[in-house]
């Protein structure tokens, strides 16, 4: 157990810190771009879904980044601990950071007299983690984080253009009073994580 904690601490320090910093910058920019005080139920969903969700891309896409350097990858594979365990550790704490960012932001909105509930937190978080999962998956499968960023950013942009054409996978549905899509997003996230690990494992064999 202590080994895994050590891995998490080292990874946090060397790999995740800059990305976490960038996610915090995005979170700090959100109230500048969107109002967060005295918003009704639907208006409250906008900053969470339309901007804060970008933190998902920043936090989850670089999970495979260190091993994309061949030297590091070869070194990690010589160790006793499975590299998939390391990916998993990074994924878990990245998701936790994402949840913390959404949690703190929702509480701040609540203090600013906006009509936010736990549903806003889970709905916004579902959009953020879905965007992040797309980046995570493409970065992992192609072995290149830039492709991960590109795909997740393009999907984000598509949400402004295609809107309801994306059906259950429309990221901003809560801003239009619909929460059902969030269950689909959450289910898809679990599937994406699983499929990504399976594909990477298969490709390695």
């Amino acid at each position, binding site marked *: 157990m202590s080994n895994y904690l050590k891995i998490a601490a*080292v990874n946090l320090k*060397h*790999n995740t810190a*800059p*990305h976490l910093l*960038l996610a915090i910058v995005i979170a700090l920019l959100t109230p*500048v*771009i*969107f*109002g967060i*005080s*005295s*918003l009704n139920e639907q*208006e409250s969903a*906008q*900053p969470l879904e*339309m*901007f804060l969700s970008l933190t998902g891309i920043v936090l989850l896409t*670089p999970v495979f*980044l*260190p091993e*994309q*350097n*061949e*030297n*590091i990858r070869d*070194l990690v594979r010589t160790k006793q601990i499975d590299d998939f365990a390391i990916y998993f550790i990074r994924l878990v704490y990245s998701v936790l950071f994402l949840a913390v960012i959404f949690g703190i932001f929702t509480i701040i909105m609540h203090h600013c007299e906006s009509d936010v509930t736990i549903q806003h937190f889970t709905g916004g978080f579902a959009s953020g983690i879905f965007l992040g999962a797309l980046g995570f998956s493409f970065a992992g499968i*192609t072995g*290149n*984080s*830039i*492709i991960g*960023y*590109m*795909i997740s*950013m*393009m999907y984000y*942009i598509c949400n*402004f*253009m*295609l809107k309801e*054409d994306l059906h259950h996978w429309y990221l901003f549905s809560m801003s239009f009073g619909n929460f059902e899509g969030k269950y689909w997003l959450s289910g898809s996230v679990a599937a994406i994580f699983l499929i990504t690990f399976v594909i990477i494992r298969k490709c390695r064999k």
Partner: protein
Amino acid sequence: MLFFKECKKILFSLIFVIYCIVLFGFYFTQFANDCEFPLEKPHEGQTDYGTIAKEVPEIMMPSAIEGLVSEYLSGEFSAYPYGFYKCVKLKEKDKKKLAEIITELSGISAETLENFDHYEPSGYVMGDDGSLVYTDGNIPEINIPPTLTYDDFRELMRKADKIIGCGSKYSDDNIVGNFSRIPKTYEDALAEYEQFCKEDKITGAYARLFCDYMGIDLSILPVFVAVFLAERDKKSRMEQLVYSRKISSARLIFTRYISLVFTMLIPVLITALLAYAKVKSIYPDNELDKFAILKTAAYWLIPNIMVSSAVGMFVTEITSGLIAIFVQGAWWFASISASSELTGSIRNFTFVMRHNSLLGYDIFQNERHIIVFNRLFFAVISVIVILLTAVIFEMKRRGVFNVKLFENRSRKSET
């Protein structure tokens, strides 16, 4: 030849394939989707021809003042400072300043505003029988001073907008659209249609729509391709090898840049040809300008590709790919959000130009000198940025510049 080698490298890269898929996807879901049917000619006797924003002081002044008084009494102001809704609540100090402006505009004293407690907003409310009924609301009586000129009114509204925090309904960009809309007549609608056919020769209008949609994508997509290629050299540890070559830094960087822009133009050219074929298919008997889409795409979209690629190359060279994506993404987001209107909102430094309408030939023509300046400005800026990239590259080659940020920091732990 280096140029062809670079082009080949880009054309056969995975990122370029994804770039093409996204671009074609955008073309088919956005532009082609809007070209299913020809634009209908207006006919006499239609119930509605739409409305048009027209600066008519007699309409604008009373309705804007009423809007401002109403928002003041409600204590909340709607604003879109970055294109997204923001509910603004003023501090006491600012409220006092705004009350003074309202007094000048409406003759309502600060005391009346302070003590008025029967405020009701105007709008639709549910009647007893369940139907929607429009109510006028309840605000103090407005008496616009006869000495108030239109220029004074606009100046006071500008001050009010500044107090609210910009992007309000009373800003120069929004006041006409919000408070001075008049219904279009049959003649207005017909004249617009005639312009669409004769002045624009149909394809001119579709060219603007094509560039509007593709410009959204092409203002951000190239940064990913540029970063991918720059990072690939780092990843495969080719940097040192490239540094040791005879070729000058300027020649290498400019060749890479030109090949990037050139290859990324190929799918744009294909979609432009597809767009022409699509328009031809829905207007088979009309006279069309064959080259309108290509011409418009050339001056509208090439600067977008140039800037986005230049930012990608420059920021990756001095810091890292992630920062380059973040910088370009932030610029793209700010530019898209700043366009309060989808037509007629092009300014000297608007990066993502919008004109999301087949009509509005006049509006576009009026913006023409701005557009020429705008596109030339961005083209020149991108060349300057690439020049700086070459300077940084040369410094790195000589070992006098070494900034590593957001790079794979695990190299430290590796040792």
